[in-house]
């Protein structure tokens, strides 16, 4: 097992290197650079732009820039943000908390509700409950996130912010709250973006769970177990469910890479101070090192997420374990 993990880690190095080359290339191919807004500013002299180009290293060819970046990154230097004049890592680190809070609660919401509902729907196939659950799921899936978010905020504003806050991360008088209330305040604020993001993921999780479980329930071994007189609960929850959960775990691996990606539109509408906002601004301003850091971080998480998913799969499925050998 350990050998397998080690091999996977070594194999991921060329993958990450490839990702970095391709993304750096695409960023360089995009016309213009960070200084374009300076170039069209009547207050900035052309000489000054040249000076800044030199200071920011933008006067070098993209290939040289890439290797400089790679060299620095291998030494643990992720570069400076042009706009903020602080190390990129610093910038990302400040946003990680809010993003993780949102993605983890959304994750719990989606999976915590989606899996039980999926199981319920599978066990009561074609019943009224199944239909209702399906309809709710598809409504969530089909309403675009930003629109759902706006509807949510509209509701919050019309009710005067009594039930839900009108976006934001904390209340205005947050600082005067005792610790427990601070905690509750943040939870109250996370509800909106969480529900918005969660409802769109809910249908997917639910349908996969339902379909998989239905498949398993039709298998011979289920019939056999039932015929042997095994209690129905044991048949379903110990045997069938265990096999049905495989694809869900694979999907979980992918969702780890999304943990930090954030949800740009939803974050924007709710004014959630996560990484999505940061990245979109960096993209618009061509703040190269911030973009690169984000891409690399997402790639690392994707690799790690898949690894975790595989390990989890091995844990639940002996067939996988055998192959890993």
């Amino acid at each position, binding site marked *: 097992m350990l050998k397998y993990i080690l091999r996977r880690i070594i194999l991921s190095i060329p993958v990450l290197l490839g990702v970095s080359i391709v993304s750096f290339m695409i960023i360089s191919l995009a016309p*213009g650079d960070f200084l374009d807004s300076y170039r069209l500013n009547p207050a900035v002299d052309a000489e000054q732009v040249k000076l800044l180009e030199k200071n920011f290293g933008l006067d070098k060819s993209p290939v040289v820039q890439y290797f400089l970046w790679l060299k620095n990154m291998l030494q643990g230097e992720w570069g400076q943000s042009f706009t903020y004049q602080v190390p990129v890592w610093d910038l990302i680190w400040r946003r990680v908390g809010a993003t993780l809070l949102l993605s983890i609660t959304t994750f719990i919401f989606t999976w915590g509700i989606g899996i039980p509902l999926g199981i319920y729907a599978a066990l009561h196939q074609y019943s009224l409950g199944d239909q209702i659950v399906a309809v709710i799921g598809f409504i969530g899936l089909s309403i675009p996130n930003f629109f759902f978010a706006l509807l949510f905020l509209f509701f919050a504003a019309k009710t005067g912010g009594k039930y839900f806050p009108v*976006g934001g991360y904390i209340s205005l008088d947050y600082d005067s709250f005792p610790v427990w209330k601070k905690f509750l305040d943040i939870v109250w604020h996370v509800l909106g973006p969480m529900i918005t993001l969660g409802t769109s993921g809910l249908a997917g999780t639910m349908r996969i769970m339902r379909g998989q479980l239905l498949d398993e329930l039709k298998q011979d071994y289920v019939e056999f177990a039932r015929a042997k007189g095994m209690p129905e609960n044991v048949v379903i929850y110990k045997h069938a469910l265990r096999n049905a959960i495989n694809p869900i775990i694979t999907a979980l691996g992918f969702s780890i890479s999304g943990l930090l990606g954030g949800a740009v539109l939803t974050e924007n509408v709710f004014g959630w101070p996560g990484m999505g*906002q940061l990245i979109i601004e960096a993209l618009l301003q061509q703040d190269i090192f911030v973009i690169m850091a984000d891409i690399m971080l997402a790639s690392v998480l994707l690799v790690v997420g898949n690894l975790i998913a595989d390990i989890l799969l091995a844990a639940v499925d002996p067939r996988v374990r055998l192959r890993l050998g």
Partner: protein
Amino acid sequence: MKKFLVLLLVFVSALAVFAEEVDWAIEDVAGKPGGTLFLDTTSGPKTMNPAWAQETSSTDIIGWVLDTLVHSSNKGLAELPGLAKEFSAKVTEDGKTVYTYVLRKGLKWSDGEPLTVDDVIWSFEKIWFDENMTANGNAGYMDSNDELPSIVRVDDYTVQFIYNSKFRRGHESIGWTEILPKHVLEPYYNEGKFQEAWSLAELDKVVGSGPFVLKEYKEGVRVVLEKNPYYYRKDKNGVQLPYLDQIIYIIVKDLNTGRLKFEAGETDIYSPTAEEFPEIRAMAEEKGWIVKQGGPNLGSNFVTFNFNAKDPVKRKWFRNDHFRRAIAYAIDKQTLIDVLYNGLGAALYGPVSPSSGFYNPEVENLGFRYSLARAKRELKDGGFVLKGGKLYDADGNQVKFELTTNAGNNVREEIGNILKENLSKLGIEVNFAPMQFNSLVGKLVSTGDWEAIIIGLTGSVDPASGWNVWRLDGGLHFWNYSPEVKPDMYDDALKADYMVPEYEKRIDEIMRLQVTAVDKDELRKLFDEFQMLVAEHQVLVYTVAQNYLIAYKNTVHIYNPEPNPAAGVLWAGWNIWKDQ
């Protein structure tokens, strides 16, 4: 012990003798202190370092925290005292210009340290006059000979900036520059790390002199400003200003959410879009809002034609005055204002905004109102012929060109669409294709590979801030770059064809002369002529601008009776107060 106490007493009273009374600035306002003003902003500050801050999200906050020698009047002119209680400009007999600033006595930084003339001198000498220390460079402080002024410390409160030539712009550029605390920033400077000073990681180190100090910044959430206890202004009842205890900027990325927050009462002031304005106005009475409309914004949107387009046939048209005038007649400004700004806008005819104190209303009398008939007459005068619904030049070439703008800017895209349609009625075929902003800038300032572009520049009250655009050797003289400024754009054929029309020469001359026009009447005359020249020849074909629109709760007492884009609704913010 007793001895020690006596000694202490003597020491304290000695200090009291030396502690100076502040030269208070007395404001003509009688409000009530206390309260918090809630504002919204789309983005928090990127840095609090004024030399490196670029976006308004940063400079708006810095404006509260760091004070300047001189303040702007509500018409946007540099004429009110700030840190300096007196200032003057004099031209000496040998042709030098001397700007004198007298600091108030007893000024203090927000950390309690005295603010002295040494801070002023240090800020200019080490930071603002050094091109490596700021993002914008030091060109803004230079006179027409590209020389910086020398700084003379006259006494403990007086400092002079002496230019070796007649130079009128020094007062604005020096007077409006933030004075920095030497005792805080010098260590960064000495370590060569000034650029990183007061970045996000170090906001707790910011020390200011303005009405408010930065208390807290939660990224992406809010910025909290707190009143500076050492601020040097009092109202007419002797209450120390600012009135407000706090200003809180709530960061709201999404404009719809910003409006919802204002409607829910979470923010106090809101700048509606033109589209929203009628709705907001309709709700105002019920909600208790005050809604106001000011003059047109300072920025501009215009169409520019490349006098040095790669195609020799096309550049001949673009250089033809009649051609550009015809375009000006073909722009239906009123429809644009109605469509884009719900009727809440103004037509622009020249390079200076009607909101500026330097605006010359004469430009409107040139009569560039929408008229396809007059456009046709201009084209005829320019030697163009309309045949079978298509326009041809004197040599028989069909008139068609590429028009572009930056994609995503609704206003410019709409201008392009309407223009294209109107020009087709004149037989001109326009291929209108918006492109990404960075590509557009690349074409405009590096390759020169474009024909016509709709673009805008940030405006300001003083037309001279556009010298970079109007001077022949300017870095933004994009429609007719000099081959010396942009050698890469020119091959030999194009270089041989480069020409400067008379009006361009005169504009260039005016832009050089205005720099030395210390006399106000002389200056106004020059700027009047400049505006007429640009408008008459439609060097840039100006379009429309939106009016300045605001809505605020009636519990907020803003100070500016007529908010205009030059000063803004938050002008003299230390005088703003709020009913509790």
